[in-house]
């Protein structure tokens, strides 16, 4: 009798599943315990302690002026290692987000170019894709950095892009910087409110169209709402923002000539090069994904669209792209994640991102490998998971359209 019940337990797939799972979990816990135990022993042997106290210590090194140093107001000798950490994160995110935006635009363009009927356009796209995706990114990073440096005039010279507003030289791209005064928050609030109203209005208009067939000019109303409401609030609160324009001087001490620090904002060439390299490299992969996605839409779809009188532009926008997106989005997500992670290569060309200043310079000063590498990995993991979650959500939405 007992034999039989034991037997029935063994042959029960569920019970067996439990057994395997408990077994795996205990092996894993033991493994982790072993690793942690080893680490503790090893650290004790080497006379090192674990702790995050170092984060409040002052960092004694200069960081090149970037978005991060501006956001966190970096001052040597006053800012802490925690500030360095945040500066690294800000700089990594900046280049990742700009890169994602750029790579998506160029990638989609090149992907569509690859399918062009024009031989020149098509082969250019092919050469672009094959060349860029088959050469390691690190090499391309060097190439673009020195190409950018070589193309730009010296520190005491400039190329005007928009006179007195935007200009470039070897020390960077100079743009006006916003100076935010108290009260600006109201305009931001108005902007957010306008967007929320727009979203509500859009769903209302859609519902109405389905029910009555009447269309509502959502786009124009929305534009009017977003701009109008924001500008109105901005004006009522007394224009609480002004611009600081880059100042270029050719008098005084020779090293002081050129663009004056503290006026306008600067995008350093290192950032431009990292951005360029990441964008162009990832765009090559995205282009291939886009091409595959478009090819995956059956030709009959295009023909059917034409036969009901749709124009090519409309067909692309309403028929092909929505269907292609289903195929495109999962690999696109991977490319976005790759781009973010690849930004860590920027350390090679002096862009002060997370790996460079926190896991590099700062780690070298305080020597807390475990804590600092852990903190760094957390940033990348969080970003990856967030991107993946967002893209999964988006993917689910796109999928719903299919019905």
């Amino acid at each position, binding site marked *: 009798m007992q034999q039989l019940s034991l037997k029935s337990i063994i042959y029960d797939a569920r019970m067996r599943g439990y057994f395997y*799972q408990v077994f795996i979990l205990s092996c894993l816990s033991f493994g982790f315990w072993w690793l942690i135990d080893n680490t503790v022993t090893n650290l004790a042997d080497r006379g090192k302690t674990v702790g995050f106290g170092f984060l409040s210590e002052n960092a004694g090194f200069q960081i090149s002026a970037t978005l991060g140093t501006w956001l966190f107001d970096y001052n040597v000798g006053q800012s802490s290692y925690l500030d360095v950490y945040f500066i690294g994160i800000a700089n990594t995110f900046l280049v990742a987000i700009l890169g994602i935006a750029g790579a998506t635009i160029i990638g989609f363009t090149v992907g569509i170019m690859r399918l062009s009927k024009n031989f020149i356009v098509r082969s250019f796209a092919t050469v672009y894709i094959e060349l860029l995706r088959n050469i390691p990114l690190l090499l391309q990073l060097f*190439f673009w950095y020195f190409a950018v440096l070589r193309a730009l005039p010296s520190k005491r010279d400039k190329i005007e892009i928009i006179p007195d507003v935007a200009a470039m030289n070897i020390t960077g791209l100079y743009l006006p910087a916003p100076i935010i005064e108290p009260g600006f928050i109201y305009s931001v609030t108005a902007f957010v409110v306008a967007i929320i109203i727009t979203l509500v209005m859009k769903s209302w208009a859609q519902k109405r169209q389905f029910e009555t067939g009447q269309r509502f000019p959502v786009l124009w109303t929305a534009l009017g709402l977003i701009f109008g409401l924001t500008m109105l609030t901005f004006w009522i609160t007394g224009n609480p923002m002004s611009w600081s324009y880059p100042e270029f001087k050719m008098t005084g001490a020779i090293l002081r000539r050129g663009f004056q620090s503290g006026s306008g904002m600067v995008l350093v060439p290192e950032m431009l090069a990292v951005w360029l390299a990441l964008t162009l490299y990832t765009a090559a992969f995205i282009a291939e994904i886009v091409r595959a996605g478009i090819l995956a839409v059956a030709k009959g779809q295009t023909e059917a669209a034409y036969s009901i009188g749709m124009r090519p532009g409309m067909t692309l926008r309403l028929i092909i792209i929505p269907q292609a997106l289903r195929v495109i989005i999962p690999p696109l997500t991977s490319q976005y994640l790759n781009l973010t992670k690849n930004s860590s290569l920027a350390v090679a060309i002096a862009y002060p991102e997370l790996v460079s200043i926190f896991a590099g310079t700062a780690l070298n000063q305080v020597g807390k490998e475990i804590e600092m590498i852990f903190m760094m990995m957390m940033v990348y993991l969080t970003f990856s998971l967030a991107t993946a979650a967002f893209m999964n959500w988006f993917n689910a939405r796109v999928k719903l359209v299919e019905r």
Partner: protein
Amino acid sequence: MTTPRKYVRTEDAPLLPPPATEAGITGWLWQNIFASMSDFQSLGAAIRSLFMILFSLLLVYLFIDQTYGLIDFAILSAVWSDPEGLKREACWTVQQGGSLPDGWHGACWPFVWAKQKFAWFGPYPSEELWRIYLSLIVGSIGLVWALRERLPYRRQVGVLMLTLYPLLAFILLTGGNSDASFTGIGVWIIVGLALISVGRMGAAGHLGTIFAEFAGIFGIVGWGIIALNVVRGIVALDFNLTPVGTGDWGGLLITLVVALTGIVASLPLGIILALGRRSEMPVVSVLCTIFIEFWRGVPLITVLFMASVMLPLFLPAGVNFDNLLRALIGVMLFSAAYMAEVVRGGLQAIDKGQYEGAQAMGLSYWQTMRLIVLPQALTHVIPGIVNTFIGLFKDTTLVSIVGIFDLLGAGQSAVADAAWSTPVQAITIYLYIGIIFFIFCFGMSRYSIFMENKLSKSRRH
């Protein structure tokens, strides 16, 4: 007067040549270039045509400009030889103390020739290079054989390439003779044999019905132990070759070793992870998901940094892995996670009916996977697999960050050599390395496209 009209033809109408816009060179040119830029019938079309004209001209200009720049740098202006052994002075301008005109900008190839051996094989002893050549030759013959269509014994060669060849290459490259006690190996083999026989007995039902269920595992573990120890034994044999430690490997050799090991090892690992992620056991699926997302979420640089400098912190004092092996494990786990996602894509594409059919036939889980699902899933995702390989191949450049001289690392260390220091030193060697990488990656991507076409053809039946 009316002339009689003939309504009936007495001979065939002559075959007219196709219109100029449809055939021949002009037709091709028309269809592929001019058709899209010569429609001026409406304003919109005219704007589009004009845009196409300008855009095409811009692209042609860009292409010619860049290509000329490259050819000028790499060929026309380049210094090709250094007969007098001047080293850096051969590539110096007058301003720097050399003989080239000021403002000269070209490749310094003698530098690359001098660093050639180092870039390819690192500090590997010169008199032992034949071992690398031999493994490379055997490897490429085997690879071509296994990948070419219509060659006899393709499958067998492929299996040999995955089993015997790594062993052969390992022995050739390191010289074998690794320290391992033969008694230990013997004991392990006996243990393995014992496990197998216990498994056999169990399977036959001699040790109780319950045990019979688990007997299979004993056999697998037993065979695994034996295979492993036979390999250890062979590697430990003395082949009378000078030992060359992995510290003396470098350059392209490292790139190939890391990439190939990563490629070969990441596939099975990736398959297991992908199956695990789709498992119905929540613990297994969660663990596999965490593993995959963790490795996909962190940059390879940090993985390598951890593997190379922090691993000793995690292991008991005194246990020390070979530096290259550590980087290899890092690369392997990293690419396995990527591979797992590719394979998962393939698994998802398999129709549910296939699983149900297999279950209806009474196949077990592993049988279903091995015989029904995986063969279909893997063929679906061959392009994805090859793309992961290409990514992995390029990613090997990152091992230079942890002090292993791969191709790029060797190049960078060559750049540091003051005997050759010139402003074009770095560009020259990077160009050279870029070309080598391009050749390998482009080759792989062509193969992927070839496979893609072949598969889509076979699917059309």
